């Protein structure tokens, strides 16, 4: 047991050094995933927002066209 102690201490030291690195790498991966999803949500927000405003413009244009058609008939 005493002969194995230095080996165990070395393994524990390696573990202490490597485990935080491994956790950090995992976190970086998760961070990268979140970043990708966050970008998607940002672009979706702006795209949907502008699409809705454009929809209102189209609605107004159609109402205007209907008024113009009525005027043409008169």
């Amino acid at each position, binding site marked *: 047991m005493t002969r194995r102690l230095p080996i165990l201490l070395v393994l524990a030291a390696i573990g202490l050094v490597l485990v935080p690195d491994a956790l950090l790498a995992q976190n970086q991966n998760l961070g990268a995933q979140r970043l990708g999803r*966050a970008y998607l949500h*940002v672009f979706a*927000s702006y795209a949907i927002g502008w699409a809705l405003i454009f929809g209102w413009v189209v609605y107004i244009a159609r109402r205007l066209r209907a008024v113009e058609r009525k005027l043409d008939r008169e």
Partner: protein
Amino acid sequence: MNARTGWFGIGMALAGVLVSAYTLWMVFFWVPTEVSMGIVQRIFYIHVPSAWVAFLAFGIVAVSSAVYLWLGDERADIAALSAAEGGIIFTTIVLITGPLWGKIAWNAYWTGEPRLTLTLVLGFIYVGYLMVRNATDTPERGKRFAAVVGIVGALFIPLIHMSVYWFRGLHPDPVILNPEGPTADPEIQTTLYVGLLGFTLLFLGLMALRYSVERAHRTLELREAA
């Protein structure tokens, strides 16, 4: 007068589009990424201006509705209708961009948070405002009922603004309109102000355009009825 309002609306809406395009450049190329929330915080620059414009629109609906009930002026009803349509559009933007932000920040699209729930109720009230116009025997009656709904709905605006202080939910406190003054970084504030200007011009321009179209439509209807 009507054509002048239309051209004024087109000019203002175009100015709004230009300022909003500049805001987009600021959002994606100029403003630094916020430290605590990261990239998703950029939704702020469409979410907050949309909320501001929605509140402005429903404020206009309330004032115009009160004028309509008081004086019976058809122009006030047309202004209220035009503002309500815009208000619903911008409230929908708030209700879509908020959950997209919340999914990243809170890991949930929706919570029963007071500010979110009250904003949803506000949106429903103004959808009801449009529905009640056509749900009565006579158009005049519908307009009067809608005017009452328009005024009652606006009472939610201060409630929504104060809900983050009164109920202490997940929604962040205001970073500009808070009692201690603006707390956001100067670049974030500048981008937000430009965004607010762009959406305000765009909304007022489109509202003026919608007003002139609706007024022309009603004038034609009156002429046909005569």
